[in-house]
């Protein structure tokens, strides 16, 4: 991971250049409006954390950013290049710059863990067995999985699958990585090490990260900015500090894990998925 061999990417100059620009993104699936005008800009080298209740469309938003879903309206620019409506074959050049960790891992179940992690490398043209083996072993040992390289994904635990998927997402050292709940289902210690990994990749490789999470602790840890997705729009956007100190009742309810009883369609599920209530830490 560390070897910054292909460095046109200097350690992040704070140039504030936008890598990802989302404007007026709207998506309806069936009759359900999921995204209703999302505007979001992400700077190079920044870690943007997206929070929001379960089912608010965070995963859907991420899928739009890599062209896996096509919006009904709006534009998405990556490095200044519009990706909405770009044919599949031309997307692949853009996608090579991006690594994605899917919420459920999406490991190829016909391959072993090691083969899964090696896959993106092989696809990027690395053929030498020795080099493949070294890089795969390194990535997997970062995740504490070197003992399980030869197992099939179905035969490892959920948390291990997530880490294997994470290893696969970062192994090609992409410029930008999208993490869909990297720490859900993991114990606090591993979660912390993953938070550190995200931070380290940002520091050392100037990786732009978008992290969807329900884990308020990791929000405070890794985020440069936080976006709170609610009712298909970005309801709140600011630094973790601003988030903590926000006087907005809705925001406070969310970060403290108070369900808005009887209010809106999602009542009662807000505390559903591994959402750790965080007591506001006065500073």
């Amino acid at each position, binding site marked *: 991971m560390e070897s910054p061999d292909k460095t046109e990417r200097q350690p992040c100059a704070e140039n504030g250049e936008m890598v990802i620009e989302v404007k007026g993104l709207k998506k309806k699936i069936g009759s359900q409006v999921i995204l209703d005008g999302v505007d979001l800009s992400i700077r190079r080298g920044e870690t943007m954390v997206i929070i929001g209740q379960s089912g608010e469309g965070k995963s859907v938003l991420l899928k739009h950013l890599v062209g*896996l879903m096509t919006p009904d309206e709006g534009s998405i620019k990556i490095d200044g290049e519009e990706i909405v409506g770009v044919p599949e074959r031309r997307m692949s050049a853009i996608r090579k710059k*991006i690594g994605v960790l899917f919420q459920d891992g*999406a490991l190829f179940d016909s391959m072993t863990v090691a083969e899964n992690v090696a896959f993106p490398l092989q696809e990027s043209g690395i053929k030498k067995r020795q080099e493949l083996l070294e890089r795969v072993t390194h990535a997997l040992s970062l995740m504490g999985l070197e003992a399980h390289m030869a197992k099939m994904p179905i035969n490892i635990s959920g948390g291990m699958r997530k880490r294997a998927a994470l290893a696969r997402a970062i192994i090609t050292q992409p410029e930008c990585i999208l993490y869909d709940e990297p720490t859900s289902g993991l114990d606090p210690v591993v979660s912390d090490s993953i938070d550190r990994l995200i931070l380290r990749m940002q520091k050392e490789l100037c990786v732009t990260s978008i992290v969807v999470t329900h884990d308020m602790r990791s929000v405070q840890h890794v985020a440069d900015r936080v976006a709170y997705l609610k009712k298909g729009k970005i309801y709140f956007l600011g630094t973790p500090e601003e988030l903590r100190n926000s006087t907005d009742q809705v925001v406070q309810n969310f970060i403290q894990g108070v369900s808005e009883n009887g209010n809106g369609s999602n009542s009662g599920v807000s505390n559903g998925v591994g959402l750790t209530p965080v007591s506001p830490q006065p500073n």
Partner: protein
Amino acid sequence: MLKLLQTTGQTASVGLSYLGQLASLLRDLVCSPFIGKVRCHLIGRQIVSIGFGSQLVVIVTGAFTGAVFAAQSYFKFNDFGIESAVGAVVSIAMCRELGPVLTALMVSGRVGASMAAEIGTMKVTEQIDALRVMGVHPVDYLVLPRAVGLLFSMPLLVAESIGFGILASRIMCVHGFHIPEAWYSHHVRAHTDLYDISIGMIKGFVFAGLIVLVSCHQGLTASNGAVGVGKGTTSAVVIASLAVLIFNFFLSLLLNQLSPLGSG
């Protein structure tokens, strides 16, 4: 009345959009070797799993069809005293119709179903999205190797099934019904030639294309989890089998135009 028109219209539009999707998959597939990446090791693996894996099914199908067809024709032909013609009838029928069609039906059950189920499972578990994100086109990676594998294997499987069909009918006739072996062979040779076998193989090739297109399309468009994959798999087999039977009819007419039975 209005309702009837409406339903007809809807059905027609569903059908047309289905054909459109198949056509667009076909276009992607045909373009794939030229603008995409060809993965020879995957093609090899498919040839092994489709070609070698289907041997038993195809041999049993061919042999028993040939045998039963020989028996039935013998009983009737015996009444007319032309039982020596059994060989010719069986071999023509095996080459031109039974061989390719039955092989295709068996293969669509065996291979088509597994294609639809495999690709469909990958679809609903986001593995296809994962491929796409890594810049790998699903048609290049999943459909092309299967298509090449089946297009290559199918004509050979058809030939194999024809061969075993004729062999079984020969055993039936010579050892079961005591038709002199020389007569039998003479009739088979006189009435079948390479052209008949190639008709079977051409048909096999076309059917292979149908099976791949239909099955992979069902897989790639699967949704709704396990139930969806199950439905997709069923549809793949049903649609592919029907398509094989329908195409066979028109193909027979076409190929007969090119070489009418009896003149060739």
